[in-house]
């Protein structure tokens, strides 16, 4: 039982090596094996969370080597919870987009699922590790997998994927540079030791520079305004099987890493003194919330709209880190899970829509609501949660963040956080209005009907759509909508039972 935590990143990591080989010999086996890998990881996360809740946080030494020689996993309420959230969302996304993966991965499903497993392994590794350098390695593992996954999305995705690679690598390298400064100042890579040493001594300029580099690097990875430029293209052009896997979790984990830095590396209150990182995050976050929502309102492509919406939501997490109070950090962490569920629901619904009608411009989706009731119902739940209507998940992250802002006397935070509901409502209710309240159009307008990347993968019989593609649409197969419905239900459940999560998991986790 003591070895369970190693399965969280270990199971997907090992299987990511096996799956590509397996794909050559027995193609049909790769999906179940990949799903099994992620399911094992989720299960191990659940066990770990249970153990943490029973017996308190513990440390797991990989291979039994104690730090500083070995690598340490820090298993506390927060990391176990976030890891459970990531793996669950990833599992549902993987199952729901299996049909897309079959199309998009072409004749090499093994490679696709290998990368997906590698991504999950990297992300869980980032979440669990207690070692600064190990975090870099996992960050780059996850990023490499993400670059590869984005890249297979067709022509435009190639260019978007390459730019993602360049910018993501800058982010990773900046992070490593920052770690170098910390290491030379403290002589340790263990987060716990670094926190002790940084807390006991006067912080020099080197540490301050290190902190700045680390946050700049992670800010790039999470798409914090103004470092977000890679994100919309990557999300829009990524394959449908991929963006519902990457969008809910990838940038969130970078945000989590930032939280981890605040919580477990730098001493409490470090960023409010000589280093104005907290203020910078606060300001950038507030700008990002507004910018992301406004930019999302200007998009007609569903996935690009959701991508800008992600920028806004990630900025929300940055605001939480910027405020820095336990309640704000807990709110940001709650939002990591909430947003994974909400955005996962929305992206999976977008994938399901494309699967059935091959469309992704919102104005072409008119009349789809009654024809795909489960998909669009889930989309509506996700949208309502994003707007922040109680008692869905989205409301409560805003609720706690507003409270944290009030406690800190930061009125502007309260105003922006609350007003962001309205900005979100502008673009999401517009989409809902199209989907439910407008009649189906005889023909999709704009070039984008069945956009070129979709065309490549559509079976010839389905493309090009002759007439009334929406009018002929029907609900997606059950293996697509069941995970989607589960995720939509999770967004409501996360809201209704948020108090238990806050009290038992997050607030103890962020209180030193």
């Amino acid at each position, binding site marked *: 039982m003591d070895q369970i935590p190693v399965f969280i990143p270990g199971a997907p990591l090992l299987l990511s090596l096996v799956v590509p080989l397996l794909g050559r010999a027995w193609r049909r086996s790769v999906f179940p094996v990949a799903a099994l890998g992620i399911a094992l990881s989720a299960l191990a996360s659940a066990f770990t969370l249970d153990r943490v809740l029973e017996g308190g946080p513990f440390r797991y030494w990989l291979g039994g080597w104690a730090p500083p020689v070995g690598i340490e996993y820090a298993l506390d309420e927060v990391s176990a919870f976030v890891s459970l959230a990531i793996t669950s969302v990833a599992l549902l996304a993987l199952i729901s987009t299996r049909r897309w993966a079959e199309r998009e991965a072409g004749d090499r499903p093994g490679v696709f699922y290998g990368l997906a497993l590698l991504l999950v392994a990297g992300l869980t590794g980032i979440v669990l590790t207690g070692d600064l350098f190990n975090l870099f390695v996992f960050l780059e593992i996850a990023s490499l997998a993400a670059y590869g996954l984005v890249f297979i999305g067709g022509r435009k995705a190639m260019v978007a994927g*390459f730019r993602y690679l360049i910018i993501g690598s*800058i982010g990773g390298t900046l992070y490593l540079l920052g770690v170098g400064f910390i*290491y030379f100042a403290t002589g340790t*890579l263990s987060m716990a030791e670094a926190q002790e040493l940084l807390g006991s001594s006067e912080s020099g300029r080197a540490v301050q520079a290190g902190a700045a580099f680390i946050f700049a690097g992670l800010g790039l990875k999470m798409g914090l305004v103004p470092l977000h430029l890679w994100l919309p293209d990557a999300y829009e052009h990524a394959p449908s099987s991929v963006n519902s896997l990457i969008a809910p979790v990838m940038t969130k984990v970078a945000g989590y890493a930032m939280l981890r830095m605040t919580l477990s590396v730098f001493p409490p209150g470090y960023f409010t003194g000589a280093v104005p990182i907290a203020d910078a995050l606060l300001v950038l976050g507030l700008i990002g919330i507004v910018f992301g929502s406004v930019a999302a309102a200007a998009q007609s492509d569903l996935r690009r709209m959701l991508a800008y919406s992600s920028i806004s939501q990630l900025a929300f997490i940055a605001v939480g880190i910027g405020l820095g109070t336990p309640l704000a950090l807990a709110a940001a962490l709650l939002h990591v899970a909430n947003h994974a569920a909400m955005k996962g629901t929305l992206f999976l619904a977008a994938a399901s829509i494309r699967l059935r009608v091959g469309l992704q411009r919102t104005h072409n989706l008119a009349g789809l609501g009654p024809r795909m009731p489960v998909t669009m119902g889930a989309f509506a739940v996700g949208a309502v949660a994003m707007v922040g209507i109680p008692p869905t998940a989205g409301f409560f992250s805003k609720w706690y963040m507003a409270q944290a802002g009030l406690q800190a006397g930061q009125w502007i935070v309260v105003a922006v956080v609350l007003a962001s509901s309205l900005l979100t409502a502008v673009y999401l209710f517009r989409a809902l209005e199209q989907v439910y309240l407008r009649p189906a159009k005889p023909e999709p307008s704009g070039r984008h009907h069945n956009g070129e990347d979709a065309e490549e993968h559509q079976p010839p019989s389905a493309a090009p759509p002759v007439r009334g593609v929406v009018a002929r649409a029907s609900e997606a197969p059950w293996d697509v909508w069941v995970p989607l419905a589960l995720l939509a239900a999770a967004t409501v459940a996360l809201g209704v039972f948020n108090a238990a999560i806050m009290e038992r998991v997050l607030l103890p986790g962020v209180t030193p």
Partner: protein
Amino acid sequence: MIEDFAARFPYIATAILLVIGLYGMMGKRSLVKQVIGLTIFQSAVILFFISGSLLEGATLPILHGVHGPEHADPDDFVNPLPHVLMLTAIVVGVGITGVALSFLISIYREFGTLDERELLDEMRK
């Protein structure tokens, strides 16, 4: 003045390399040059780690080496950990460069060009 410069030389060298790398990635239209910039950028950080662990007159941390069998004064050895870390970082960097180059091959096959501006024009079509 000179001593200050000498003491900070590793930092300054790292900074120069970082800026060159950034320029390569941000300022160049050719995607190949962007990859070169990325490599320079990563190398800068690797050099930073190595230079940070450097000690004047120290040697390899092999206990039975030049200093005799029982000698264990840490001041006489360079810190091995950054070197080990950088081995990993180099592997990561090589991995990224390899992936980037394979991307470039695919992009060239698809678009027939590696000029960023032309590619972005293609994207807008």
